[in-house]
C-alpha cells in the first residue's frame, strides 16, 4: 500500500527529530521532502500544493513552536490532514430502493467487472440477493467474463447478447429482478475515456434512467497524475457516490487515493486487494493515513501515539533489536509503549505483512498476563533471562498469579523472538518489518 510513502516521510521526520525547534528554514526543508514523497507517491501536484500549505501553516503555529518535539507535532498534523483528505471515516454503501441499484463506471481496465462480482459476493454474504447486469456491450468477451464470474459465485447474470442499448438492457434487468428474487442490481459498464463524449453520454443516460443508489467510480491504485483529470471529469458527468480503489495488493504508493478523493468529493468505500473474488475490503481512511505515517519500523509505529511515546526510547529499543541485545526489560518497555497506544487490533493493521492476520482477535488478556509475569521478575532477571532457573520461575509464577507453564512459555517465546531478531539483524529494515510481528 502506501508503504513507500511512509518510508519516505519517516525519513524526513527522523531528520526533523534532530532539530531542536522549528524555524521557517527547517520547516521548508521538511516540507520539500514531504512534497517530494507525496509526488513520488503519485499524489497530484496540485493536491500536494494545497496539502503542504495547510500543513505548513499549522506547523508554524505557535503551539508547535512551543512544543519540545516539533517533529512529532508535524507527524500529528500530517496524520490528521491525511485522514481528513481521505475522508475522515469509513463510508458504507447506501443501498436504498428495491431493488437497490449499483452502477460501476471508470476507465478501461480499472477493474469494474471484477469489482462488480466482488461486490455481489460481499453483498450476498450480508444477506442480500444480487443480480449482475452486463452492460459492457463493446469489449470483446466482456459479457462472457461477467457470466463466468457469476457462475463461479453462483449469482445470476442478466445479459442480452446482441443488444447495444445499455439503458434498455439495464431497465429490463431491473424489471426482471423479481424473477431472480434479487434485491440488489449491480450494473457493470464498459471502460471509457472521460474525454469520449459519446461514451460519457451513454453513462449519463444510464444514470438518468436507473437512478442508482450508488454510482461507484472504479480507479486503479497505480494511476499517476492524470487521476484528477479522469476522476474529475467523471464526477462532472455523473453524480458519483463513492470510489473503489483497485489493485491495492501491488506496491503502488497509491497517492491517487488522495487525488481521486479530493476531486470527486466522494468517499473511497472499498479497496480491491487481489484478483480473486474475495479480495475486497472496506476502505479505512484512518488506517490508510496511519499507514502512510506509521510504517517502516517500530519507531514510526510507536509514533502513532504521539504524546504517550518516548521516541528516543523507541529508537533505543530498535537499535537493541538490531544488535540482538534486546532483553526482557526492553520487552517490558516495548509492551508498555504498545499498550499505551490503544487497542492492539488497530495497531496490527498498520504493520506490513499483517494484513491477513489483522482480523484475528488479539488476546488482550494474554498480553496482560505476559505483562504480569515480566513485572514479577527482578530487573536482573529481565536483563539476563538466562539465569531464570526452576525456582526463580516458580517464584515468578506465584508472584504474577500464573502457572509455571505460562512463565516457561513466555521465556520460550522470548527466546525464539530473539533468535529471529538475530536473523533479521542482517536484513534490511523493510524485510525486518515484514517478519517481525510474529513475535507478538
Amino acid at each position: 500500500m502506501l508503504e513507500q510513502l511512509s518510508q519516505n516521510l519517516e525519513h524526513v521526520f527522523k531528520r526533523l527529530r534532530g532539530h531542536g525547534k522549528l524555524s521557517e528554514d527547517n520547516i521548508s526543508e521538511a516540507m520539500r521532502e514531504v512534497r517530494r514523497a507525496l509526488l513520488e507517491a503519485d499524489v497530484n501536484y496540485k493536491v500536494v500544493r494545497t496539502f503542504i500549505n495547510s500543513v505548513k501553516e499549522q506547523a508554524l503555529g505557535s503551539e508547535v513552536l512551543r512544543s519540545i518535539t516539533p517533529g512529532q507535532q508535524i507527524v500529528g498534523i500530517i496524520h490528521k490532514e491525511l485522514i481528513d483528505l481521505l475522508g475522515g471515516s469509513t463510508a458504507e454503501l447506501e443501498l436504498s430502493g428495491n431493488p437497490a441499484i449499483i452502477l460501476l463506471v471508470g476507465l478501461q481496465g480499472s477493474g469494474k467487472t471484477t469489482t462488480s462480482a466482488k461486490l455481489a459476493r460481499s453483498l450476498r454474504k450480508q444477506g442480500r440477493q444480487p443480480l449482475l447486469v452486463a452492460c459492457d456491450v463493446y469489449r470483446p468477451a466482456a459479457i462472457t467474463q461477467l457470466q463466468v464470474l457469476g457462475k463461479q459465485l453462483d449469482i445470476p447474470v442478466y445479459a442480452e447478447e446482441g443488444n447495444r442499448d445499455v439503458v434498455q438492457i439495464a431497465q429490463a434487468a431491473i424489471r426482471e429482478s423479481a424473477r431472480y428474487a434479487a434485491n440488489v442490481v449491480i450494473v457493470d459498464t464498459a471502460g471509457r475515456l472521460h474525454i469520449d463524449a459519446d461514451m460519457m453520454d451513454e453513462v449519463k443516460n444510464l444514470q438518468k434512467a436507473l437512478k442508482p443508489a450508488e454510482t461507484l467510480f472504479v480507479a486503479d491504485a497505480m494511476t499517476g497524475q492524470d487521476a484528477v483529470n479522469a476522476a474529475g471529469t467523471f464526477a462532472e458527468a455523473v453524480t458519483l457516490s463513492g470510489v473503489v480503489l483497485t489493485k491495492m495488493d501491488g506496491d503502488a504508493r497509491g497517492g491517487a487515493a488522495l487525488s481521486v478523493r479530493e476531486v470527486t468529493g466522494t468517499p473511497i468505500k472499498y479497496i480491491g486487494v487481489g484478483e480473486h473474488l474475495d479480495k475486497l475490503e472496506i476502505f479505512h481512511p484512518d488506517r490508510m493515513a496511519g499507514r502512510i505515517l506509521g510504517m517502516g519500523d517500530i519507531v514510526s509505529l510507536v509514533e502513532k501515539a504521539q504524546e504517550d511515546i518516548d521516541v528516543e526510547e523507541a529508537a533505543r529499543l530498535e537499535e537493541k533489536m538490531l544488535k540482538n541485545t534486546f532483553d526482557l526489560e526492553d520487552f517490558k518497555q516495548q509492551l508498555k509503549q504498545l499498550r499505551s497506544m490503544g487497542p492492539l487490533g488497530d495497531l496490527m493493521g498498520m504493520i506490513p505483512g499483517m494484513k491477513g492476520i489483522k482480523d484475528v482477535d488479539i488476546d488482550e488478556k494474554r498480553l496482560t498476563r505476559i505483562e504480569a509475569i515480566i513485572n514479577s521478575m527482578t530487573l536482573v532477571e529481565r536483563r539476563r533471562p538466562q539465569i531464570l532457573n526452576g525456582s526463580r520461575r516458580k517464584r515468578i509464577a506465584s508472584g504474577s498469579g500464573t502457572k509455571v507453564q505460562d512463565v516457561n512459555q513466555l521465556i520460550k517465546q522470548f527466546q525464539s523472538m530473539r533468535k529471529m531478531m538475530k536473523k533479521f539483524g542482517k536484513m534490511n529494515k523493510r524485510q525486518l518489518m515484514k517478519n517481525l510481528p510474529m513475535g507478538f
Partner: protein
Amino acid sequence: MLFSATFKKLKQGLSRSRTQLNNRMSKLFTGSVPLTEQMLEEIEETLISADIGVDLSLEIIENLRKNFPLNQVVDMATVVAFLRADLSQRMTSKPGEAEGHEKPYVILVVGVNGTGKTTSIGKLAHHYSKAGKKVLLVAGDTFRAAAIEQLAIWSERSGAELMQKEATDPSAVVFDALQSAKQRGLDVVIIDTAGRLHTQKNLMVELDKIQRVIKKVIPSAPHETVLTIDATTGQNGLIQARQFSQVTPVDHLFLTKLDGTAKGGIAIAIHHNLDIPVKYIGLGEQIEDIQNFDPVSYVEALFQVRETH
C-alpha cells in the same frame, strides 16, 4: 516504419484535453522574458504532471539551468525547443524488426493487470497478418475469466490462428503452440499472458517458467518481449518495468491508452533508467489503433502549445 506515421491521432489524443500541460505551456512560453525561478518551478510541475517523475524532472530542469542563465531574457520558444530536444533525445533508440529473423518470430507480451496486453496483441496480429504473415496467437492467460474468449475474438478479427487449451498450465499451451508453429513454418507467434502484479511471487515464477519453456523449443526466442504500460500509470510503472525485466528481459514497451489525457511520461523514466524504449503506442480500442512510437512526434504532442486543428 511499421505503421502509418501520421501521428494525427496521437496529437489529437495528447492535445484534445484542455489539460494543465497545454494551457500552461501556451501561457508560459510566449515572447521574450527573463527566466525566473518561478518559471522553472512551473516547468518542473509541468513535467511532473506528465508522470515523468521527480528525479528525472529535476534532471531536466538542471539541464535547462545549465543552458539558460537565470534572470536573463530568453525567447521562450527556444526554451520549449530545448525541452523538446532534450526529451526526444532521451527517448530515441532503434527498435529491431521482425524481418530477417528466423521463423517463427516469437513475441511475448507481459504486464500488470488490465494494461492492454490482449487488445494490443490483437492489434499486432492484425498488423502482421495484413503484411501477409502467418500469425499464431497463444492463449497463455488461462486464469482470468473469459481471457481466452477475448483473445479468440481478436484472432477472428485479425485473421490470425489461435492456440488454446482450457484450464491448463500456461507453459503447456506455449509449448504446444511453439512446436506446432515450428513444424508448420508459421511466421509470427504472439503469446498472451495473464495480467500479474510484479509483487506476486508465484505469478512471476510462472512467467519465468513460460519464458524457459519458450527457450526450450526455440533457444533464440522470445525474439521480442513486450511490456505493456498503461499511459495512466504513475511512478509504479518504473518498478513494474524493473521487476518484469528481472524475470524476463524486456525489449520494448507498448505504451497503451495514449488516446486519453494521460501523457505516459513514466515511459520516459523507464527508458532513462532501464534503457527499455517504447516501440508501439496504443491509441484506442480498435484493431487499427496502433502506431510505431516516434519520440519527436510524441514530445511535440506532449508540449503542444495550443493551436487550431
